[in-house]
Each structure stands twice: as C-alpha cells, then as structure tokens.
C-alpha cells in the first residue's frame, strides 16, 4: 500500500517535461526539413549496418558456419565424386564446380536474411524500431546493405579457398569483376525474398525450414551437374532455374569449363543473370515493403 503512495508522491511532485527534443525536424524551411530527413535516413541505415557488423565481430564463427556447407561441398563433390562427374565439353570438374559453389552460397544467403528478419520481428526489435523517431526506410535498406557486405566477405573467403584447390579465373579482370558483380546482384534480389519471408513466417524454426525449399532448388540447376546430362524432362527445368543462369554466366565470365549448352536460356546466360534477379527484385521488393507497411494495419 505504501508503495502506491510513494509513487504518487514523487510523481506528482516532479511532473513530466523531459525528452521532447530529438535531432529530427530542426530544419527551417521545407527544403531543409527534407535534407535533414535524408541525412537521418542515411545515418540510421549506417547505424543498422554497424549493428550487423558488430554482431559478426562478436561472433566471427557465424560466418564460418555459413560457409561450412559450400566449403564441405567443394571438398565432397570436388574430391569424392569429382572423378565420376562429367563436364560437357571436357575440363576439370573442380573448375566447373566453383562458379556453382559461389552461386549456391549466394542463394543460401536468403535464409540468413529471413532468419535475421524473423528474429527481429518475433522478439519485438522491429516494434521497438517502429516506435522510435528513426527513419522507417533505414530498417530494410540497412538490412540489404549489411547482407551484401557479408555476402562479399563470403565470396572473398570462398574464392581464396577455390584458389587454394587450383581454381582460377581466365576471363581477365573486367569479366571476373562482372562475374562477382552478378553473384552479388543475385544475392541482392534474394535479400528481398528473405525480408518478405521473414515478415511472413512466424518464428525462426519456420525460417530454418526454408532450407527444405532452397536445397532442392539449388540441386535442380547447373550448380553440380550440367542440365544437358539430366533426363530430358528435367533438363529444361534446371536450365530455366534462375540460379542456373548466374552459374552459367559466371562460368562463361571466369572462363571455366562447361559454360555452354544448347538451349536459348543457356546461350544468353549473362543477359539472363541480369534479367532474373531484376525480375525477382521487381516482384519481391514491393511485396516486402508492402508487408512491412502493413504491420501498422
């Protein structure tokens, strides 16, 4: 009983009146207000990128775990199955395999994005952000920027591993850079699929189940085996898989074996490696933004 009295006693005595001032809205005209808003949108985005990078700095093993599967795959498929694998047109299977591993790592990144968004959403972190005077756009933009940075780091580590087992890019610096650019572009488009999944799925367990979808999708592609060697009913599915386009395009750009193929989609792989991610982004970026906005409905 006395505690209730204590509270009213102190509370009515001091009153409120703190905390009204923030950094927002200090500009004078409408132009200054817009510039101010843009400034804080950038600053908030960078703060959220910093948050992700701090997470990785505190637990660097997270990145190793994410790379575990592709690296183990390189060793298993490259060395255990390697001698039994055929490369159309001849060539070393490990050279053939690496662009597939790069692409698969980008595709699996979708699960990291989804897991991070689900975790923030289910733990109330998204609610906290939305109840703060920060720029709302900083949340998705910060997520995509930091995921791209992590993806670039993953590619660097994987490329170093690849060089160690004898993979090289014979395409010249321009084509090589374009190849890695296309890989990051695929990852970028999948970030929005991941954000959308993260907002739709109820919990991190459900996000883990995405594996059951992504794993077969990466298998039924040109990651491990050329579609030409698959049964005739499966070959077109694998060839038209968006993941295959990035794999084939990077094989072509890196000058690795097995890039060619009979179908139109395989012959225009670089074009399709632009077109597919562009289409995925065009569909899922608006979906993700709409889903985020509908949280307040």
């Amino acid at each position: 009983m006395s505690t209730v009295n204590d509270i009213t006693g102190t509370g009515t005595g001091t009153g409120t009146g703190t905390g009204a001032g923030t950094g927002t809205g200090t500009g004078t005209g409408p132009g200054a207000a817009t510039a101010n808003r843009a400034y804080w949108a950038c600053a908030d985005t960078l703060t959220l990128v910093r948050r992700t990078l701090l997470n990785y700095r505190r637990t660097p093993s997270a990145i190793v775990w994410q790379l575990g599967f592709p690296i183990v795959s390189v060793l298993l498929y490259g060395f255990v199955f390697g001698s039994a694998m055929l490369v159309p047109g001849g060539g070393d299977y490990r050279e053939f395999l690496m662009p597939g591993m790069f692409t698969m790592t980008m595709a699996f990144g979708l699960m990291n994005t989804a897991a991070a968004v689900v975790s923030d959403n289910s733990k109330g972190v998204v609610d906290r952000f939305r109840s703060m005077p920060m720029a709302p756009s900083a949340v998705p933009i910060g997520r995509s920027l930091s995921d791209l940075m992590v993806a670039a780091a993953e590619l660097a580590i994987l490329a170093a591993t690849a060089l160690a087992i004898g993979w090289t890019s014979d395409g010249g610096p321009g084509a090589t850079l374009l190849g890695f650019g296309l890989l990051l572009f695929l990852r970028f488009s999948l970030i929005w699929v991941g954000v959308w999944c993260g907002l739709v799925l109820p919990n991190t367990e459900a996000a883990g189940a995405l594996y059951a979808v992504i794993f077969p999708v990466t298998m039924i592609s040109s990651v491990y085996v050329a579609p030409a060697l698959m049964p005739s009913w499966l070959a077109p599915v694998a060839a038209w898989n968006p993941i295959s386009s990035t794999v084939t395009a990077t094989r072509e750009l890196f000058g690795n074996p097995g890039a060619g193929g009979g179908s139109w989609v395989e012959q225009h792989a670089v074009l399709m490696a632009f077109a597919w991610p562009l289409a995925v982004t065009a569909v899922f970026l608006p979906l993700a933004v709409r889903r985020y906005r509908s949280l307040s409905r």
Partner: protein
Amino acid sequence: MPEHAVLAEGLSKRYGKKRRDDVTHALDGFDLAVRPGTVHGLLGPNGAGKTTAVRILATLLRADGGRAEVAGVDVARDPRGVRARIGLVGQFAAVDEGLTGRQNLELFGRLFHLGGRAARVRAGELLDLFALTEAADKGAGQYSGGMRRRLDLAASMILAPAVLFLDEPTTGLDPRARGEVWDAVRTLVAGGTTVLLTTQYLDEADRLASRITVMDRGRAIADDTPDGLKDRVGGDRVEVVVAEPADLPAARAVLARIAGTDPRTDEAERRVHAPVTDRVAALTEVARTLQEERIAVEDLALRRPALDDVFLKLTGGRETTTDTEKEEVAA
C-alpha cells in the same frame, strides 16, 4: 504541459474485414485519461484489447476510429512527434542478444539521433541507473531474464521519455526479477516519466499503479484508484476457516449475528466470510464468540478485498491467464 499524458477518446480497431461475421472488435470505443507523472494500470482478461490499445498509442498500429493524444501530440497526425516522446517495452525483451549491453544501448542511442559521443555517455549513465555496469560488456544473450528486462527498460529510457508504455513487463520473470523491474519502474517515475502499465498480474497493478483502468471486450469498464475499485466489491470482511466441516453452520450463524448480513460460505475450503463495518471490533467479537461456543478455528482474519475480487466481479468471472495474448491477429 498537457493536462493528460495520455488521452484516448472512442478508439476503435477491427481485425479481419473480408467477411462480416469474421470481424473482431479488438477495441470498441475505448476511453482513457492518464495524469502526468503517475503509473496508470491497464487491466483486463485475455483479448480485452490491452495490447491493441498500447500499440495504437505507441504508433505501431493505426486506429479505425476515435482519437488519441500522447504527451499532447496526436498519434494519427504526428506519429513521429509521438515517437520522440515515448518509450515502449513490449512483451519480449527487444534487445540484440548478439551484442553487449553497452553496445545495445549505444545502438539505440544512435537511432534516437543522439550522435556517437552522446550515445556512449547516455549508455554509461543508464547502465549505472539500472545496475548493469558490471555486466555491461557481456553479451546480452548471457543475461538473466531480469537483467535483459532491465536492459530493455534502459533502452526505452534513452531520451527520458515523457510517456513510457510497459506491456506486461514482468511476464515470465521469477519473483526476484519482478522486484528488480518494479524498482526500476519506480526510479523512472521518480524522474518524472508517466507510465502506462499493462499487466495480467493484479498484485503488480496494486503495487505500482495509482490509478487503474479495467478493460473488457475492447472498452474501459472501470477507472478508479486501486482502493476505489476494491470498495466497489464491498469493504473489509471477516473471514473464518473452521477446522471441522461440521462446524461450518455454527460459524456461519455467529458471523451472521455479528456482521448483520448474510455470510457467504465456501464448503470446500471450510470458509465463511461476511463484510463488516466496524472492522476490529467485529473481528474481536467474532473471535470471542467462536471461542465461547467452542468452535475450532483454523484461520480467522480481517481481509481487504483483493483486486482479483474486483476483477472477477467487473468482468463477470472470466479469469486471466498468463498466456500471451492472441488479440492481435498476425497482421
């Protein structure tokens, strides 16, 4: 300063709009007025609309009807203005478990636009205030439930908000951790913050709140001080628990004679109780008479009605549980 820290008038919110029979009224003409500098409790059974009300006031959800002001700012017209004046502590500790306590507070400080240096200074102050300095550089994932809650509270206090929303802040905490959170809340109110506290624990509202709004089916059905609410179910009462079930009618007769009203009997618990006006005199009289009539008594007491009694009376017997509320349909 506005007259009310929080003001809601006729707030309404419906979920599910496709089919008419599917529509749930989460809020249906909800009114609320909170005086500045107080702790105001929001009580109600599951699905009464407490969380929906808090989410609308904290600008997380748009109302379908009615209006609301927080710290004098309209939530629909200027949500950003509201956000600069509030703190929100939801049902889960919304902290990044991959970061340390200090990193968490610095992160939120930057997002409140304090700038790097001020965010660092403020993080240090809050760690001190919430007794987390020792654990400041440990990962928040290793914190105990109470510590994580305190870090969560600290994060909501970065700007010393005018109004703090606490949505079931002690759900799932052990008694010691609950005590820690209560102490933290008292510290905040002493600093001038107004707190709107949603809780399912009636003793929590009783301890912290100077005024309580009881909600049911999306409306406020009572608004009073804890004592005022208790008076509504009658004043103090004398309660007798007899040792032998056979003595129950005799004890009942004694109580009826002295209290002058018809006592209520709970046979399973061998208990009989009746409201009294001259409290201690009645208690003494009952004790003396029971002894004279040689009725063996296990317990004899003068009891204030608990908020539970109020709650059960007002909401027609629908009890609260500690389950997480399902009132917001996954949006």
